[in-house]
């Protein structure tokens, strides 16, 4: 009581005297001196006045292309330096722990390069469509943008997301266990439109997409998927694709492992059989315990993760919180997400936030009163096909510990009595 009165009584005369000075046309220096004296008391909370309320801010176009507040400088893509031999053939992770909603900001969308980020001149970029087609075409970016456009919100997830956790809990971080994912509104032309324009020959069954980067990344796609929902994309969250995402052109293959959504797309070839490229034989195949390997496992199955609390965002003190998280499925919409606070003994159904879109990130939330005792937090997604996200133990039982890809297991966060949070796995 005494402190509040003191603060109020000291601040009010200052403000009054300042107003008087201004009214009298006092020099600016005088005002600044008074401002400094006031700020020295550290009064930014009410009833004080912070500095930013007493100075004029930067004008328009001070930053012709906006950027986040300097106070958000820690919210950046990060990599795991020990994971790969070079930065040019590597991956960075989206800081999911600091994001809201379902849209990933373009500057924070995870990167996956096989031969570095290339900066392609859109005026010189061409898309060649050929193979088993009636009318092979070379298209400029202007040509591509003239076709009817489509905008849709979808996630892209690298199938190696969580790959370092197959064997054991290794990375104490939401960003590094789950950050090879992003979700954006993508704008482009339906691949079915382009394939209609070139005309498919009757033997056409498979489509190869290839990038213009030095890796000339290429993957085979069955024709049915191409005609179903694939987009040839030039827009990302309202602006042009970012170079990291394949500017000026990429394919988006909704719900499928990110590697097939080839960036810097320059060639589409139609064939009668898959190509069995290096990226779909030696990589992006899953080694099973019996020594056999699975290929063409494209779909990212139902998955979810709690984004608060998490190792980067511990719990401050006992009390009421909202457990928040993200869920997604390459098979369609999320139907339900359940949360357990006791390691999977009991579960509660969470509230899903609109919009709930097919093959897109979906937000869930559940009120949680933390009593300060140890907790084991888990989330479990169920998609519209009814598929229930598995535990890591269930996955290992079938697939062992060496698949690298498609770990869609339930994540466990251990909350300790001091509120700190750790990545753990349960037996």
């Amino acid at each position, binding site marked *: 009581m005494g402190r509040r009165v003191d603060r109020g009584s000291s601040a009010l005369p200052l403000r009054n005297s300042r107003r008087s000075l201004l009214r009298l046309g006092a020099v600016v220096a005088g005002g600044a001196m008074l401002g400094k004296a006031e700020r020295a008391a550290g009064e930014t909370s009410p009833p004080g006045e912070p500095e930013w309320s007493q100075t004029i801010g930067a004008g328009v176009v001070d930053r012709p292309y906006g950027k986040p507040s300097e106070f958000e400088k820690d919210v950046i893509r990060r990599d795991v330096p020990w994971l790969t031999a070079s930065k040019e053939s590597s991956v960075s992770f989206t800081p999911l722990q600091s994001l809201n909603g379902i849209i990933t900001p373009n500057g924070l969308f995870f990167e996956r390069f096989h031969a570095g980020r290339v900066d392609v001149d859109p005026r010189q970029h061409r898309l060649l469509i050929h193979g088993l087609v009636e009318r092979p075409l*070379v298209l400029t970016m202007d040509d591509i943008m003239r076709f009817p456009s489509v905008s849709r919100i979808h996630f892209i997830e690298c199938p190696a997301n969580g790959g370092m956790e197959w064997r*054991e809990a290794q990375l104490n971080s939401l960003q590094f266990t789950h950050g090879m994912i992003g979700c954006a509104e993508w704008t482009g032309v339906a691949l079915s439109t382009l394939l209609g324009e070139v005309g498919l020959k009757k033997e056409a069954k498979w489509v190869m997409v290839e990038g213009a980067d030095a890796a000339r990344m290429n993957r085979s796609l069955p024709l049915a998927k191409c005609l179903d929902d694939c987009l040839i994309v030039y827009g990302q969250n309202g602006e042009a694709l970012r170079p990291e995402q394949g500017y000026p052109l990429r394919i988006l293959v909704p719900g499928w492992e990110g590697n097939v959504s080839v960036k810097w797309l320059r*060639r589409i070839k139609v064939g009668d059989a898959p190509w069995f490229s290096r990226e779909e034989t030696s990589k992006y195949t899953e080694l099973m315990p019996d020594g056999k390997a699975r290929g063409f496992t*494209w779909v990212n199955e139902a998955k979810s993760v709690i984004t608060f609390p998490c190792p980067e965002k511990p719990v401050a003190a006992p009390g009421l919180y909202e457990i928040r998280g993200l869920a997604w499925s390459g098979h369609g919409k999320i139907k339900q997400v*359940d949360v357990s606070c006791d*390691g999977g003994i009991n579960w509660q159904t969470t509230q899903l936030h609109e919009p709930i879109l097919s093959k897109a990130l979906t937000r869930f939330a559940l009120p949680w009163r933390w009593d300060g005792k140890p907790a084991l937090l888990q989330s479990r997604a169920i998609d519209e096909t009814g598929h229930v996200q598995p535990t890591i133990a269930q996955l290992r039982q*079938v697939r062992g510990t060496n698949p690298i890809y498609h770990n869609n297991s339930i994540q466990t966060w251990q909350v300790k009595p001091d509120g700190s949070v750790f990545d753990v796995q349960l037996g």
Partner: protein
Amino acid sequence: MSSSASIPAATAMSVIMLLGICLVGISANAASPGAFGYGTVATPAEIAGWDIDARGTDGLGLPPGKGDVSHGADVFIQQCATCHGTFGEGEGRYPKLEGGVGTLTADRPEPTVGSYWPFAPTLWDYINRAMPFSAPHTLSADDVYAITAYILNFNNIVPADFVANRDSLPKVKMPNRDNFTWTDPRPDTNNFACMKNCIDPKAVKIIATAEGKDLTPRTTGPLDAMKAK
């Protein structure tokens, strides 16, 4: 009569005009080739320049040319050994290209060209497509054939006198060829949405934790430059 007939005629005309506008869209969406007419028809020369793929199973798309193991060793040492080692043993974290046979069921498998890759033409395709890492697509078709022959040879898949070309490569039977399945068997787990007393509380045990492992880069402050593990 004529004036009363002219009104419906005019209406019919405008209906036809409206239909005409709609029909442009309908016919374009009906996927008749060239309906939009955008872009230019690709010439054979344009296609040939970019048509670089060679199919894994049958080598469709492999170009003329050839290369033997001996020449391949020379080119490999100049162009590839810095990262992959003289005999494909791998330097640092760069990929090993040989060995690992018999390890695919081991605790720490080593998938390499010899132990894992199912198709030999894919090797030609990938080297031609993306290697050498810092200067891709700079080798001649003959040199790519030669490197392919050398890699297959140090994996004991082809003899020292092997000559790689568009006919011989598809005939090479890779050791792991038959150990792939190309249809997705998932869903292969059957978790169900139990809500209450789903497991015995005594069975809830932490068997692994990331706590205390020096593997996680920092997630605040500047980017972490932690060393390779």
